[in-house]
């Protein structure tokens, strides 16, 4: 049988990348920073946002996009703190895509904001693959998940601009080797800043917020 090969070279993230690009243009115009918070289910992303919002108050005006498969529980928690929040329900999908994030951003009062945190669906795999138009991905890893996770999910730790290591108040009760975890993170990404945090005890948040403010300043200078 005769056969012929036709070369096409077509990107398979086409639509997603297009919407991500639109979001980047919109946010650049509005001078708003979008951060994509990625971590496993129950790693403490919402608690981190609750506590970080208190530290950011008076410095930056923030809003949150809450990505979940089901329920509006996380959005309700943040709304109780008077944080502008929109809930994105994927109804089963394991990650947020650029188009839904773009529409949700357009519903926020961007002119009144400096920074939007997008809490992605709890998952270390799929959200790392999809650009949602963010300025930076931030990996959130809790000490209860084990020190080997950076090696098991390398893409996220390669793509992230920083790591927040949560629940460190639990260290005395766990067989978690903190120095091995840091070594594993830096094996994947040698220069990645890591912020050990206990949101419930409110320790380590200052350092993370300080980095965030500095990073935002340097990122906006590059534009």
């Amino acid at each position, binding site marked *: 049988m005769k056969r*012929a090969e036709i070369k096409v070279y077509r990107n398979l993230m086409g639509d997603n990348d297009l919407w991500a690009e639109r979001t980047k243009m919109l946010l650049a115009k509005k001078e708003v920073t979008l951060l994509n918070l990625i971590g496993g289910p129950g790693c403490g992303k919402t608690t981190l946002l609750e506590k970080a919002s208190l530290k950011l108050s008076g410095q930056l005006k923030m809003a949150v996009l809450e990505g979940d498969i089901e329920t509006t529980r996380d959005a309700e928690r943040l709304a109780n703190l008077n944080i502008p929040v929109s809930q994105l329900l994927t109804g089963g999908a394991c990650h947020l895509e650029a188009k839904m994030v773009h529409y949700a951003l357009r519903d926020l009062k961007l002119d009144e904001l400096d920074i939007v945190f997008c809490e992605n669906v709890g998952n270390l795999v799929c959200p790392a693959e999809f650009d949602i138009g963010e300025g930076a991905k931030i990996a959130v890893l809790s000490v209860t998940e084990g020190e080997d996770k950076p090696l098991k999910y390398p893409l996220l730790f390669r793509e992230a601009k920083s790591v927040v290591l949560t629940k460190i108040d639990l260290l005395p009760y766990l067989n978690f080797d903190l120095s091995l975890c840091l070594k594993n993170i830096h094996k994947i990404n*040698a220069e990645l800043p890591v912020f050990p945090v206990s949101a419930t005890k409110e320790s380590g948040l200052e350092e993370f917020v300080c980095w965030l403010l500095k990073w935002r300043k340097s990122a906006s200078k590059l534009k």
Partner: protein
Amino acid sequence: MHEYVICQNLVRTILGELEKQGYSPSKLLTARVVVGKLRQIVPEILISAYTVLSKGTGLEGSKIEIISAPVWVKCEDCGWTGKIENFNFRCGACQGGRLKIFGGKELYLKSLIIKGDEKSRD
């Protein structure tokens, strides 16, 4: 399971390209897809997703072939350029970790292998 979302794009892209080039979808034998090693895409899932999602589209019965693309890096300290294996992000010369990635995140449809020759369009 993001392989299914990517596969939806793949099926759409293949159908669009075949139409653009003037071929019937049933002419397709194999679509060659390049997937970088940094992508967390499981080839077996992408292949089974294609079997499911191509059903009833005219592409049914065709296959996808996945070509794995290596991770290429350049060391920002000594300038070494090379491939890395097993996510060992270390410079092959100075063992430094300041590496710039310029290959390994590919995800694209490379080519379509069709029955007949390029002139036998429908």
